[in-house]
Protein backbone atom coordinates (compact mmCIF):
# COMPACT_ATOMS: atom_id res chain seq x y z
CA UNK A 1 0.00 0.00 0.00
CA UNK A 2 1.59 3.13 -1.14
CA UNK A 3 -0.94 5.72 -0.24
CA UNK A 4 -3.30 5.97 2.66
CA UNK A 5 -5.98 7.71 0.64
CA UNK A 6 -6.06 4.87 -1.71
CA UNK A 7 -6.79 1.92 0.47
CA UNK A 8 -8.42 -0.84 -1.49
CA UNK A 9 -11.56 -2.43 -0.19
CA UNK A 10 -11.38 -6.17 -0.18
CA UNK A 11 -14.86 -7.70 -0.39
CA UNK A 12 -15.53 -8.51 -4.02
CA UNK A 13 -19.02 -7.44 -5.02
CA UNK A 14 -18.78 -8.27 -8.64
CA UNK A 15 -16.42 -10.46 -10.55
CA UNK A 16 -16.35 -10.55 -14.28
CA UNK A 17 -14.15 -13.20 -15.76
CA UNK A 18 -13.04 -13.69 -19.32
CA UNK A 19 -15.84 -11.64 -20.80
CA UNK A 20 -15.96 -11.71 -24.57
CA UNK A 21 -18.37 -9.92 -26.82
CA UNK A 22 -18.38 -10.35 -30.56
CA UNK A 23 -21.07 -8.57 -32.52
CA UNK A 24 -21.82 -10.43 -35.72
CA UNK A 25 -21.73 -8.31 -38.83
CA UNK A 26 -23.14 -9.43 -42.11
CA UNK A 27 -21.05 -8.50 -45.05
CA UNK A 28 -22.66 -9.26 -48.38
CA UNK A 29 -25.11 -12.02 -48.85
CA UNK A 30 -22.73 -14.87 -49.42
CA UNK A 31 -19.74 -13.18 -47.88
CA UNK A 32 -18.50 -14.75 -44.67
CA UNK A 33 -19.75 -13.40 -41.39
CA UNK A 34 -17.35 -11.09 -39.68
CA UNK A 35 -17.40 -9.92 -36.10
CA UNK A 36 -16.87 -6.68 -34.29
CA UNK A 37 -14.68 -7.88 -31.47
CA UNK A 38 -15.85 -5.32 -28.98
CA UNK A 39 -14.52 -6.96 -25.82
CA UNK A 40 -11.90 -9.68 -25.65
CA UNK A 41 -11.18 -11.80 -22.62
CA UNK A 42 -11.72 -9.16 -20.02
CA UNK A 43 -11.65 -9.92 -16.32
CA UNK A 44 -12.13 -7.48 -13.51
CA UNK A 45 -13.22 -7.46 -9.92
CA UNK A 46 -15.10 -4.68 -8.23
CA UNK A 47 -15.02 -4.53 -4.48
CA UNK A 48 -17.84 -3.50 -2.29
CA UNK A 49 -18.01 0.23 -1.72
CA UNK A 50 -15.37 1.29 -4.19
CA UNK A 51 -15.49 3.22 -7.41
CA UNK A 52 -13.85 1.44 -10.27
CA UNK A 53 -13.00 3.72 -13.16
CA UNK A 54 -12.84 2.35 -16.65
CA UNK A 55 -11.17 4.55 -19.25
CA UNK A 56 -10.26 4.19 -22.84
CA UNK A 57 -10.80 5.75 -26.21
CA UNK A 58 -14.08 5.80 -28.00
CA UNK A 59 -15.16 2.39 -29.22
CA UNK A 60 -12.77 0.43 -27.07
CA UNK A 61 -15.58 -1.52 -25.44
CA UNK A 62 -16.24 0.28 -22.20
CA UNK A 63 -19.99 0.50 -22.58
CA UNK A 64 -20.16 -3.03 -23.88
CA UNK A 65 -18.41 -4.24 -20.78
CA UNK A 66 -20.75 -2.29 -18.55
CA UNK A 67 -23.79 -3.68 -20.28
CA UNK A 68 -22.56 -7.23 -20.21
CA UNK A 69 -22.06 -6.95 -16.50
CA UNK A 70 -25.70 -5.99 -16.14
CA UNK A 71 -26.67 -8.53 -18.73
CA UNK A 72 -28.28 -5.92 -20.88
CA UNK A 73 -26.13 -7.60 -23.47
CA UNK A 74 -25.52 -11.31 -23.54
CA UNK A 75 -21.79 -11.99 -23.36
CA UNK A 76 -20.45 -14.19 -26.13
CA UNK A 77 -18.60 -16.03 -23.43
CA UNK A 78 -17.31 -15.48 -19.94
CA UNK A 79 -19.10 -15.15 -16.68
CA UNK A 80 -20.28 -12.59 -14.21
CA UNK A 81 -20.61 -13.29 -10.53
CA UNK A 82 -22.52 -10.95 -8.32
CA UNK A 83 -22.01 -11.41 -4.61
CA UNK A 84 -20.55 -14.78 -5.47
CA UNK A 85 -23.64 -15.82 -7.43
CA UNK A 86 -23.15 -16.78 -11.00
CA UNK A 87 -25.65 -14.61 -12.93
CA UNK A 88 -24.53 -15.38 -16.44
CA UNK A 89 -27.18 -18.00 -16.97
CA UNK A 90 -29.97 -16.47 -14.98
CA UNK A 91 -33.37 -16.62 -16.55
CA UNK A 92 -35.38 -13.50 -17.25
CA UNK A 93 -37.20 -13.94 -13.91
CA UNK A 94 -34.09 -14.56 -11.82
CA UNK A 95 -32.49 -11.59 -13.48
CA UNK A 96 -35.29 -9.35 -12.36
CA UNK A 97 -34.53 -10.24 -8.78
CA UNK A 98 -30.92 -9.07 -8.99
CA UNK A 99 -31.65 -6.11 -11.26
CA UNK A 100 -32.99 -4.35 -8.24
CA UNK A 101 -29.48 -4.30 -6.95
CA UNK A 102 -27.66 -3.36 -10.12
CA UNK A 103 -28.46 -0.20 -11.97
CA UNK A 104 -27.07 1.84 -14.82
CA UNK A 105 -26.83 5.52 -15.67
CA UNK A 106 -26.19 6.48 -19.24
CA UNK A 107 -24.11 9.09 -20.88
CA UNK A 108 -26.89 10.91 -22.62
CA UNK A 109 -29.32 12.26 -20.09
CA UNK A 110 -31.53 13.54 -22.89
CA UNK A 111 -32.53 10.16 -24.24
CA UNK A 112 -32.49 8.29 -20.96
CA UNK A 113 -35.93 9.51 -19.97
CA UNK A 114 -39.14 8.71 -21.75
CA UNK A 115 -40.21 12.13 -23.07
CA UNK A 116 -43.85 11.30 -22.46
CA UNK A 117 -43.61 10.35 -18.82
CA UNK A 118 -43.72 12.86 -16.05
CA UNK A 119 -40.72 12.88 -13.79
CA UNK A 120 -42.64 11.60 -10.80
CA UNK A 121 -43.99 8.67 -12.75
CA UNK A 122 -40.61 7.92 -14.23
CA UNK A 123 -38.95 7.72 -10.84
CA UNK A 124 -41.81 5.72 -9.47
CA UNK A 125 -41.77 3.23 -12.34
CA UNK A 126 -39.22 0.83 -10.80
CA UNK A 127 -41.40 0.62 -7.72
CA UNK A 128 -44.36 -0.48 -9.76
CA UNK A 129 -42.21 -2.89 -11.71
CA UNK A 130 -41.31 -4.60 -8.46
CA UNK A 131 -44.65 -3.95 -6.76
CA UNK A 132 -43.05 -2.17 -3.84
CA UNK A 133 -45.59 -0.35 -1.70
CA UNK A 134 -48.79 1.43 -2.66
CA UNK A 135 -49.44 4.64 -4.54
CA UNK A 136 -49.13 6.87 -1.52
CA UNK A 137 -45.88 5.32 -0.43
CA UNK A 138 -44.66 5.68 -3.95
CA UNK A 139 -45.26 9.36 -3.99
CA UNK A 140 -43.56 9.85 -0.68
CA UNK A 141 -40.61 7.79 -1.77
CA UNK A 142 -40.33 9.74 -5.00
CA UNK A 143 -40.38 13.06 -3.21
CA UNK A 144 -37.73 11.83 -0.87
CA UNK A 145 -35.59 10.74 -3.79
CA UNK A 146 -36.08 14.06 -5.53
CA UNK A 147 -34.82 15.78 -2.43
CA UNK A 148 -31.88 13.45 -2.19
CA UNK A 149 -30.67 14.27 -5.67
CA UNK A 150 -31.22 17.98 -5.17
CA UNK A 151 -34.47 18.52 -6.99
CA UNK A 152 -37.63 20.18 -5.75
CA UNK A 153 -41.01 18.58 -5.00
CA UNK A 154 -42.61 20.80 -7.65
CA UNK A 155 -40.62 18.95 -10.27
CA UNK A 156 -42.77 15.87 -9.66
CA UNK A 157 -45.31 16.79 -12.32
CA UNK A 158 -43.01 18.05 -15.01
CA UNK A 159 -41.87 16.46 -18.22
CA UNK A 160 -38.24 15.69 -19.01
CA UNK A 161 -37.94 18.38 -21.68
CA UNK A 162 -38.42 20.99 -19.02
CA UNK A 163 -35.11 20.07 -17.47
CA UNK A 164 -31.52 20.77 -18.33
CA UNK A 165 -29.01 18.01 -18.89
CA UNK A 166 -27.66 18.19 -15.38
CA UNK A 167 -31.09 18.02 -13.88
CA UNK A 168 -32.00 15.09 -16.01
CA UNK A 169 -28.94 13.27 -14.89
CA UNK A 170 -30.19 13.83 -11.34
CA UNK A 171 -33.57 12.41 -12.29
CA UNK A 172 -31.96 9.36 -13.80
CA UNK A 173 -30.02 8.90 -10.62
CA UNK A 174 -33.17 9.20 -8.57
CA UNK A 175 -34.84 6.57 -10.70
CA UNK A 176 -31.89 4.25 -10.32
CA UNK A 177 -31.93 4.77 -6.57
CA UNK A 178 -35.64 3.99 -6.32
CA UNK A 179 -34.98 0.27 -5.99
CA UNK A 180 -32.13 0.71 -3.49
CA UNK A 181 -29.38 -0.69 -5.60
CA UNK A 182 -25.98 -1.66 -4.30
CA UNK A 183 -24.13 -1.32 -7.51
CA UNK A 184 -24.40 1.28 -10.25
CA UNK A 185 -22.73 1.33 -13.62
CA UNK A 186 -22.17 4.96 -14.56
CA UNK A 187 -21.60 5.00 -18.29
CA UNK A 188 -20.00 8.37 -18.93
CA UNK A 189 -22.55 10.18 -16.78
CA UNK A 190 -20.93 13.59 -17.12
CA UNK A 191 -19.40 13.67 -20.56
CA UNK A 192 -22.47 15.23 -22.13
CA UNK A 193 -22.63 17.93 -19.54
CA UNK A 194 -21.20 21.39 -19.46
CA UNK A 195 -18.09 21.88 -17.46
CA UNK A 196 -19.82 23.94 -14.84
CA UNK A 197 -22.54 21.32 -14.38
CA UNK A 198 -20.16 18.38 -14.44
CA UNK A 199 -18.81 19.15 -11.02
CA UNK A 200 -22.31 19.30 -9.57
CA UNK A 201 -23.03 15.78 -10.71
CA UNK A 202 -19.67 14.40 -9.68
CA UNK A 203 -20.17 15.78 -6.20
CA UNK A 204 -23.65 14.35 -6.09
CA UNK A 205 -22.39 10.93 -7.09
CA UNK A 206 -19.88 11.00 -4.31
CA UNK A 207 -22.46 12.17 -1.85
CA UNK A 208 -24.84 9.40 -2.77
CA UNK A 209 -22.12 6.84 -2.57
CA UNK A 210 -21.59 7.82 0.98
CA UNK A 211 -25.27 7.98 1.84
CA UNK A 212 -26.29 4.71 0.24
CA UNK A 213 -23.06 2.76 0.41
CA UNK A 214 -22.98 2.34 -3.30
CA UNK A 215 -20.43 0.68 -5.47
CA UNK A 216 -19.74 2.28 -8.82
CA UNK A 217 -18.33 1.13 -12.06
CA UNK A 218 -17.47 4.51 -13.47
CA UNK A 219 -16.93 4.57 -17.20
CA UNK A 220 -15.39 7.68 -18.73
CA UNK A 221 -12.96 8.84 -21.31
CA UNK A 222 -12.00 11.96 -19.39
CA UNK A 223 -8.98 10.96 -17.39
CA UNK A 224 -9.16 13.86 -14.98
CA UNK A 225 -12.69 12.96 -14.04
CA UNK A 226 -11.82 9.33 -13.58
CA UNK A 227 -8.90 10.28 -11.48
CA UNK A 228 -11.04 12.49 -9.35
CA UNK A 229 -13.71 9.98 -8.59
CA UNK A 230 -12.21 6.50 -8.77
CA UNK A 231 -10.46 4.35 -6.28
CA UNK A 232 -9.09 2.04 -8.88
CA UNK A 233 -8.78 2.52 -12.61
CA UNK A 234 -8.75 0.11 -15.51
CA UNK A 235 -7.49 1.22 -18.90
CA UNK A 236 -8.98 -0.38 -21.95
CA UNK A 237 -7.67 -0.45 -25.46
CA UNK A 238 -9.48 -2.15 -28.31
CA UNK A 239 -11.51 -4.45 -26.10
CA UNK A 240 -8.60 -5.40 -23.89
CA UNK A 241 -7.87 -4.36 -20.36
CA UNK A 242 -4.26 -3.21 -20.68
CA UNK A 243 -3.60 -1.85 -17.25
CA UNK A 244 -5.30 -1.72 -13.89
CA UNK A 245 -4.15 -0.08 -10.71
CA UNK A 246 -5.22 2.00 -7.74
CA UNK A 247 -5.80 5.52 -9.02
CA UNK A 248 -2.81 7.23 -7.57
CA UNK A 249 -0.52 4.49 -8.63
CA UNK A 250 -1.80 4.55 -12.14
CA UNK A 251 -1.53 8.28 -12.51
CA UNK A 252 1.84 8.58 -10.93
CA UNK A 253 3.48 5.47 -12.28
CA UNK A 254 1.76 4.38 -15.43
CA UNK A 255 3.43 1.30 -16.82
CA UNK A 256 1.77 0.45 -20.06
CA UNK A 257 2.96 2.55 -23.01
CA UNK A 258 -0.61 3.24 -23.96
CA UNK A 259 -1.52 4.47 -20.51
CA UNK A 260 1.49 6.70 -20.58
CA UNK A 261 0.63 8.16 -23.94
CA UNK A 262 -2.91 8.64 -22.85
CA UNK A 263 -1.93 10.48 -19.72
CA UNK A 264 0.52 12.67 -21.51
CA UNK A 265 -2.01 13.59 -24.17
CA UNK A 266 -4.41 15.14 -21.71
CA UNK A 267 -4.20 18.90 -22.15
CA UNK A 268 -3.34 20.58 -18.95
CA UNK A 269 -5.20 23.75 -18.01
CA UNK A 270 -1.99 25.41 -17.08
CA UNK A 271 -0.06 27.27 -19.72
CA UNK A 272 3.10 27.07 -17.71
CA UNK A 273 3.16 23.33 -17.72
CA UNK A 274 3.29 22.59 -21.40
CA UNK A 275 4.70 19.13 -21.03
CA UNK A 276 6.47 16.98 -23.53
CA UNK A 277 3.76 14.85 -24.97
CA UNK A 278 3.93 11.37 -26.32
CA UNK A 279 1.92 11.82 -29.46
CA UNK A 280 0.76 8.48 -30.78
CA UNK A 281 0.74 8.10 -34.51
CA UNK A 282 -2.21 6.71 -36.40
CA UNK A 283 -5.73 5.85 -35.35
CA UNK A 284 -7.22 3.11 -33.29
CA UNK A 285 -7.49 0.08 -35.59
CA UNK A 286 -10.87 -1.36 -36.45
CA UNK A 287 -12.21 -3.86 -33.95
CA UNK A 288 -13.23 -6.04 -36.88
CA UNK A 289 -9.66 -6.86 -37.85
CA UNK A 290 -7.77 -6.81 -34.60
CA UNK A 291 -4.01 -6.50 -34.94
CA UNK A 292 -2.11 -9.67 -34.21
CA UNK A 293 -0.23 -10.05 -30.97
CA UNK A 294 -0.57 -7.05 -28.72
CA UNK A 295 -3.43 -4.99 -30.06
CA UNK A 296 -1.51 -1.82 -29.29
CA UNK A 297 1.62 -2.68 -31.21
CA UNK A 298 0.86 -0.75 -34.44
CA UNK A 299 0.80 2.50 -32.49
CA UNK A 300 3.23 1.63 -29.76
CA UNK A 301 6.40 3.73 -29.83
CA UNK A 302 8.34 0.91 -28.21
CA UNK A 303 6.96 -2.10 -29.96
CA UNK A 304 9.30 -5.02 -30.47
CA UNK A 305 8.98 -8.13 -32.60
CA UNK A 306 7.32 -10.18 -29.86
CA UNK A 307 4.53 -7.65 -29.61
CA UNK A 308 3.46 -8.46 -33.14
CA UNK A 309 3.21 -12.15 -32.42
CA UNK A 310 2.27 -12.81 -28.87
CA UNK A 311 -0.71 -11.57 -26.98
CA UNK A 312 0.51 -10.16 -23.67
CA UNK A 313 -1.32 -11.40 -20.63
CA UNK A 314 -2.43 -9.23 -17.77
CA UNK A 315 0.09 -9.75 -14.99
CA UNK A 316 -0.04 -8.49 -11.49
CA UNK A 317 3.17 -6.55 -10.99
CA UNK A 318 2.50 -4.92 -7.69
CA UNK A 319 -0.44 -5.39 -5.43
CA UNK A 320 -3.52 -4.48 -7.41
CA UNK A 321 -1.40 -3.22 -10.27
CA UNK A 322 -1.88 -5.35 -13.32
CA UNK A 323 -0.39 -4.67 -16.76
CA UNK A 324 -0.55 -6.45 -20.06
CA UNK A 325 2.67 -5.62 -21.83
CA UNK A 326 5.68 -7.60 -23.01
CA UNK A 327 8.08 -4.82 -22.21
CA UNK A 328 7.50 -4.72 -18.51
Amino acid at each position, binding site marked *: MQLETNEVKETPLLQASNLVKHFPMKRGYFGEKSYVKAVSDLSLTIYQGETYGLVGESGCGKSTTGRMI*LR*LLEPTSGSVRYRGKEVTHFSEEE*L*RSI*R*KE*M*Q*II*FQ*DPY*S*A*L*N*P*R*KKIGKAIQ*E*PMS*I*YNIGDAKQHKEAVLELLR*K*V*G*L*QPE*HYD*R*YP*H*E*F*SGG*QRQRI*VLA*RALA*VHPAFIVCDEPVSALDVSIQ*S*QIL*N*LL*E*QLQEDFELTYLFIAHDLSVVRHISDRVGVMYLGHLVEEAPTDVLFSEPLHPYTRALLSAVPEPNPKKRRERIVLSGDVPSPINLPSGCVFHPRCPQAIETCKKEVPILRELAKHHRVACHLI
Partner: protein
Amino acid sequence: METSSVTMVGTGSATPPMHHAKIVVNRFFANRLAVSGSILVLLITMICILAPLLTSYDPIEMNVQERLKPPSTSHWFGTDEFGRDVFTRVVYGSRISMGVGFSVVMITSVVGLMFGLYSAYYRKLDNFLMRINDGLMAFPAILLAIAILAALGPKMSNVIIALSVVYIPTVARAIRSAAITVREQTYIEAIRALGGKSWRIIWLHIAPNCLSPLIVQATFIFAYAVITEASLSFLGAGTPPPEPSWGNILNDGRTIMKQAWWMTVFPGVSIMMTVLGLNLLGDGLRDLLDPHTNKAKK
Protein backbone atom coordinates in the same frame (compact mmCIF):
# COMPACT_ATOMS: atom_id res chain seq x y z
CA MET B 1 -16.75 28.88 0.99
CA GLU B 2 -18.11 25.40 0.58
CA THR B 3 -21.47 24.68 -0.87
CA SER B 4 -23.19 21.42 -0.34
CA SER B 5 -23.04 19.84 -3.72
CA VAL B 6 -26.42 18.25 -3.42
CA THR B 7 -28.65 21.26 -3.23
CA MET B 8 -29.16 23.36 -6.25
CA VAL B 9 -29.72 27.00 -6.26
CA GLY B 10 -32.12 28.57 -8.68
CA THR B 11 -33.82 25.37 -9.68
CA GLY B 12 -36.88 27.43 -10.48
CA SER B 13 -35.12 28.91 -13.44
CA ALA B 14 -34.75 25.46 -14.86
CA THR B 15 -38.23 25.68 -16.27
CA PRO B 16 -38.13 26.94 -19.82
CA PRO B 17 -39.74 30.30 -20.36
CA MET B 18 -42.87 28.84 -21.78
CA HIS B 19 -44.56 25.56 -21.17
CA HIS B 20 -43.96 23.07 -23.95
CA ALA B 21 -47.62 22.46 -24.69
CA LYS B 22 -48.13 26.14 -25.04
CA ILE B 23 -45.30 26.37 -27.54
CA VAL B 24 -46.87 23.58 -29.50
CA VAL B 25 -50.22 25.30 -29.52
CA ASN B 26 -48.63 28.58 -30.50
CA ARG B 27 -46.68 26.95 -33.23
CA PHE B 28 -49.83 25.32 -34.53
CA PHE B 29 -51.72 28.56 -34.61
CA ALA B 30 -48.82 30.25 -36.30
CA ASN B 31 -49.16 27.78 -39.14
CA ARG B 32 -51.93 29.38 -41.13
CA LEU B 33 -52.35 26.43 -43.45
CA ALA B 34 -52.72 23.96 -40.61
CA VAL B 35 -55.28 26.20 -38.98
CA SER B 36 -57.31 26.50 -42.16
CA GLY B 37 -57.03 22.74 -42.54
CA SER B 38 -58.45 22.11 -39.13
CA ILE B 39 -61.19 24.63 -39.70
CA LEU B 40 -62.16 22.80 -42.86
CA VAL B 41 -62.12 19.45 -41.14
CA LEU B 42 -64.10 20.82 -38.23
CA LEU B 43 -66.63 22.34 -40.58
CA ILE B 44 -67.11 19.10 -42.44
CA THR B 45 -67.40 17.18 -39.20
CA MET B 46 -70.08 19.59 -38.08
CA ILE B 47 -71.91 19.09 -41.35
CA CYS B 48 -71.79 15.33 -40.81
CA ILE B 49 -73.16 15.57 -37.34
CA LEU B 50 -75.80 18.14 -38.12
CA ALA B 51 -76.86 16.69 -41.47
CA PRO B 52 -80.53 16.20 -40.59
CA LEU B 53 -80.78 19.77 -39.32
CA LEU B 54 -79.27 21.27 -42.44
CA THR B 55 -81.87 20.03 -44.85
CA SER B 56 -85.50 19.18 -44.95
CA TYR B 57 -85.25 16.71 -47.80
CA ASP B 58 -84.70 13.00 -47.66
CA PRO B 59 -81.48 11.90 -49.33
CA ILE B 60 -83.00 8.76 -50.83
CA GLU B 61 -86.64 9.40 -51.55
CA MET B 62 -87.24 10.07 -55.20
CA ASN B 63 -89.39 12.61 -56.89
CA VAL B 64 -89.16 12.13 -60.62
CA GLN B 65 -91.14 15.25 -61.37
CA GLU B 66 -88.34 17.32 -59.95
CA ARG B 67 -85.51 15.66 -61.77
CA LEU B 68 -82.38 17.51 -62.88
CA LYS B 69 -83.37 20.95 -61.70
CA PRO B 70 -80.51 23.43 -61.59
CA PRO B 71 -79.56 25.07 -58.30
CA SER B 72 -82.27 27.32 -56.95
CA THR B 73 -83.45 28.60 -53.64
CA SER B 74 -85.41 25.44 -52.94
CA HIS B 75 -82.63 23.16 -54.14
CA TRP B 76 -79.34 24.86 -53.38
CA PHE B 77 -77.29 22.35 -55.30
CA GLY B 78 -80.05 21.38 -57.75
CA THR B 79 -81.60 17.96 -58.04
CA ASP B 80 -80.40 14.70 -59.52
CA GLU B 81 -81.84 12.34 -62.07
CA PHE B 82 -84.34 10.96 -59.55
CA GLY B 83 -85.30 14.41 -58.37
CA ARG B 84 -83.43 14.05 -55.11
CA ASP B 85 -81.98 17.18 -53.62
CA VAL B 86 -78.25 17.21 -54.37
CA PHE B 87 -77.47 19.41 -51.39
CA THR B 88 -79.11 16.87 -49.12
CA ARG B 89 -77.25 14.06 -50.77
CA VAL B 90 -73.94 15.85 -50.53
CA VAL B 91 -74.59 16.65 -46.88
CA TYR B 92 -75.57 13.09 -46.07
CA GLY B 93 -72.78 11.91 -48.34
CA SER B 94 -70.35 13.57 -45.98
CA ARG B 95 -71.53 11.12 -43.36
CA ILE B 96 -70.61 8.22 -45.56
CA SER B 97 -67.34 9.64 -46.78
CA MET B 98 -66.24 10.84 -43.38
CA GLY B 99 -67.70 7.80 -41.68
CA VAL B 100 -65.79 5.48 -43.95
CA GLY B 101 -62.66 7.58 -43.51
CA PHE B 102 -63.00 7.69 -39.77
CA SER B 103 -63.70 3.99 -39.36
CA VAL B 104 -60.81 3.13 -41.63
CA VAL B 105 -58.55 5.35 -39.57
CA MET B 106 -59.66 3.74 -36.33
CA ILE B 107 -59.21 0.21 -37.59
CA THR B 108 -55.92 0.85 -39.35
CA SER B 109 -54.58 2.71 -36.34
CA VAL B 110 -55.36 -0.02 -33.86
CA VAL B 111 -54.33 -2.93 -36.04
CA GLY B 112 -51.41 -1.08 -37.60
CA LEU B 113 -50.15 -0.05 -34.18
CA MET B 114 -50.24 -3.61 -32.98
CA PHE B 115 -48.53 -5.02 -36.02
CA GLY B 116 -46.00 -2.23 -36.09
CA LEU B 117 -45.09 -2.46 -32.44
CA TYR B 118 -44.77 -6.19 -32.29
CA SER B 119 -42.81 -6.50 -35.46
CA ALA B 120 -40.48 -3.76 -34.29
CA TYR B 121 -39.96 -5.46 -30.96
CA TYR B 122 -39.71 -9.09 -31.92
CA ARG B 123 -37.30 -9.58 -34.76
CA LYS B 124 -38.50 -13.03 -35.68
CA LEU B 125 -42.07 -11.91 -35.93
CA ASP B 126 -40.85 -8.94 -37.88
CA ASN B 127 -39.63 -11.02 -40.75
CA PHE B 128 -42.92 -12.82 -41.07
CA LEU B 129 -45.18 -9.81 -40.65
CA MET B 130 -43.17 -7.61 -42.93
CA ARG B 131 -43.28 -10.17 -45.72
CA ILE B 132 -47.07 -10.11 -45.55
CA ASN B 133 -46.93 -6.38 -45.33
CA ASP B 134 -44.73 -6.11 -48.39
CA GLY B 135 -47.01 -8.48 -50.21
CA LEU B 136 -50.06 -6.40 -49.46
CA MET B 137 -48.25 -3.19 -50.29
CA ALA B 138 -47.27 -4.57 -53.64
CA PHE B 139 -50.93 -4.47 -54.65
CA PRO B 140 -51.98 -1.12 -55.97
CA ALA B 141 -54.42 0.22 -53.37
CA ILE B 142 -57.37 0.69 -55.66
CA LEU B 143 -57.01 -2.72 -57.21
CA LEU B 144 -56.81 -4.48 -53.90
CA ALA B 145 -59.87 -2.59 -52.73
CA ILE B 146 -61.78 -3.44 -55.90
CA ALA B 147 -60.89 -7.09 -55.55
CA ILE B 148 -61.84 -7.27 -51.89
CA LEU B 149 -65.10 -5.49 -52.56
CA ALA B 150 -65.90 -7.76 -55.43
CA ALA B 151 -65.37 -10.68 -53.09
CA LEU B 152 -67.29 -9.31 -50.13
CA GLY B 153 -69.99 -7.48 -52.01
CA PRO B 154 -70.61 -3.75 -52.03
CA LYS B 155 -71.67 -2.71 -48.57
CA MET B 156 -70.46 0.21 -46.57
CA SER B 157 -69.02 -2.11 -43.96
CA ASN B 158 -67.15 -3.96 -46.67
CA VAL B 159 -65.81 -0.72 -48.08
CA ILE B 160 -64.40 -0.04 -44.64
CA ILE B 161 -62.91 -3.50 -44.41
CA ALA B 162 -61.39 -3.27 -47.87
CA LEU B 163 -59.86 0.14 -47.27
CA SER B 164 -58.58 -0.97 -43.89
CA VAL B 165 -56.86 -3.96 -45.41
CA VAL B 166 -55.38 -1.64 -47.99
CA TYR B 167 -54.02 0.86 -45.50
CA ILE B 168 -53.03 -1.26 -42.53
CA PRO B 169 -49.66 -2.10 -44.08
CA THR B 170 -48.90 1.58 -44.54
CA VAL B 171 -49.64 2.35 -40.93
CA ALA B 172 -47.90 -0.77 -39.67
CA ARG B 173 -44.83 0.19 -41.57
CA ALA B 174 -44.77 3.75 -40.29
CA ILE B 175 -45.29 2.58 -36.74
CA ARG B 176 -42.68 -0.06 -37.12
CA SER B 177 -40.03 2.35 -38.26
CA ALA B 178 -40.94 4.79 -35.52
CA ALA B 179 -40.95 1.99 -32.96
CA ILE B 180 -37.56 0.74 -34.09
CA THR B 181 -36.13 4.18 -33.51
CA VAL B 182 -37.76 4.34 -30.09
CA ARG B 183 -36.63 0.82 -29.27
CA GLU B 184 -33.03 1.94 -29.70
CA GLN B 185 -33.46 4.85 -27.31
CA THR B 186 -31.61 4.74 -24.06
CA TYR B 187 -34.72 5.04 -21.97
CA ILE B 188 -35.94 1.71 -23.25
CA GLU B 189 -32.69 0.14 -22.21
CA ALA B 190 -33.06 1.90 -18.90
CA ILE B 191 -36.42 0.24 -18.34
CA ARG B 192 -34.91 -3.08 -19.23
CA ALA B 193 -32.14 -2.41 -16.76
CA LEU B 194 -34.81 -1.73 -14.19
CA GLY B 195 -36.32 -5.12 -14.91
CA GLY B 196 -39.36 -4.01 -16.90
CA LYS B 197 -41.14 -6.74 -18.81
CA SER B 198 -41.77 -6.74 -22.53
CA TRP B 199 -45.41 -5.68 -22.34
CA ARG B 200 -44.49 -2.74 -20.18
CA ILE B 201 -41.78 -1.69 -22.57
CA ILE B 202 -43.99 -2.11 -25.62
CA TRP B 203 -47.18 -0.57 -24.38
CA LEU B 204 -46.10 1.90 -21.75
CA HIS B 205 -42.93 3.15 -23.32
CA ILE B 206 -42.68 2.45 -27.02
CA ALA B 207 -46.35 2.89 -27.93
CA PRO B 208 -46.82 6.37 -26.45
CA ASN B 209 -43.78 7.54 -28.31
CA CYS B 210 -45.19 6.27 -31.58
CA LEU B 211 -48.39 8.23 -31.17
CA SER B 212 -47.15 11.29 -33.01
CA PRO B 213 -46.29 9.46 -36.18
CA LEU B 214 -49.51 7.53 -35.76
CA ILE B 215 -51.61 10.65 -35.51
CA VAL B 216 -49.90 12.17 -38.51
CA GLN B 217 -50.22 8.98 -40.46
CA ALA B 218 -53.85 8.66 -39.45
CA THR B 219 -54.64 12.09 -40.83
CA PHE B 220 -53.16 11.19 -44.18
CA ILE B 221 -54.84 7.81 -44.18
CA PHE B 222 -58.08 9.62 -43.54
CA ALA B 223 -57.45 11.75 -46.60
CA TYR B 224 -56.49 8.75 -48.74
CA ALA B 225 -59.50 6.82 -47.53
CA VAL B 226 -61.83 9.63 -48.54
CA ILE B 227 -60.26 9.84 -51.99
CA THR B 228 -60.14 6.09 -52.46
CA GLU B 229 -63.70 5.62 -51.29
CA ALA B 230 -64.71 8.28 -53.79
CA SER B 231 -62.70 6.64 -56.54
CA LEU B 232 -64.19 3.26 -55.76
CA SER B 233 -67.71 4.60 -55.67
CA PHE B 234 -66.94 6.46 -58.83
CA LEU B 235 -65.96 3.18 -60.46
CA GLY B 236 -69.18 1.74 -59.09
CA ALA B 237 -67.37 -0.54 -56.69
CA GLY B 238 -67.69 1.45 -53.50
CA THR B 239 -70.56 2.50 -51.34
CA PRO B 240 -73.65 1.01 -52.93
CA PRO B 241 -76.32 3.46 -54.06
CA PRO B 242 -78.93 4.69 -53.35
CA GLU B 243 -77.02 5.55 -50.18
CA PRO B 244 -75.30 8.81 -51.13
CA SER B 245 -71.54 9.04 -51.02
CA TRP B 246 -69.62 11.75 -52.78
CA GLY B 247 -68.11 9.25 -55.15
CA ASN B 248 -71.38 7.75 -56.24
CA ILE B 249 -73.11 11.09 -56.58
CA LEU B 250 -70.28 12.00 -58.94
CA ASN B 251 -70.67 8.70 -60.68
CA ASP B 252 -74.38 9.35 -61.17
CA GLY B 253 -73.63 12.77 -62.54
CA ARG B 254 -70.65 12.15 -64.75
CA THR B 255 -72.54 11.21 -67.89
CA ILE B 256 -74.50 14.42 -67.69
CA MET B 257 -71.67 16.65 -66.57
CA LYS B 258 -72.47 19.15 -69.21
CA GLN B 259 -76.21 19.46 -68.60
CA ALA B 260 -76.19 18.94 -64.87
CA TRP B 261 -72.84 20.35 -63.80
CA TRP B 262 -74.12 20.65 -60.25
CA MET B 263 -74.07 16.91 -59.86
CA THR B 264 -70.34 16.68 -60.39
CA VAL B 265 -69.16 20.04 -59.18
CA PHE B 266 -70.56 19.96 -55.66
CA PRO B 267 -69.48 16.49 -54.61
CA GLY B 268 -66.16 17.06 -56.36
CA VAL B 269 -65.58 20.25 -54.45
CA SER B 270 -66.65 18.53 -51.24
CA ILE B 271 -64.09 15.79 -51.74
CA MET B 272 -61.45 18.34 -52.52
CA MET B 273 -62.20 20.48 -49.50
CA THR B 274 -62.22 17.52 -47.16
CA VAL B 275 -59.06 16.02 -48.49
CA LEU B 276 -57.42 19.42 -48.60
CA GLY B 277 -58.42 20.06 -45.02
CA LEU B 278 -57.09 16.72 -43.89
CA ASN B 279 -53.86 17.10 -45.81
CA LEU B 280 -53.27 20.58 -44.45
CA LEU B 281 -53.97 19.35 -40.97
CA GLY B 282 -51.71 16.36 -41.48
CA ASP B 283 -48.92 18.56 -42.75
CA GLY B 284 -49.32 20.88 -39.83
CA LEU B 285 -49.36 18.04 -37.36
CA ARG B 286 -46.33 16.52 -38.92
CA ASP B 287 -44.35 19.73 -38.73
CA LEU B 288 -45.45 19.96 -35.16
CA LEU B 289 -45.23 16.44 -33.81
CA ASP B 290 -42.99 14.56 -36.05
CA PRO B 291 -40.67 16.87 -37.87
CA HIS B 292 -38.01 14.33 -38.65
CA THR B 293 -39.94 11.45 -40.12
CA ASN B 294 -38.88 10.64 -43.55
CA LYS B 295 -41.74 11.97 -45.51
CA ALA B 296 -41.06 9.62 -48.35
CA LYS B 297 -42.23 6.71 -46.31
CA LYS B 298 -45.63 7.78 -45.40
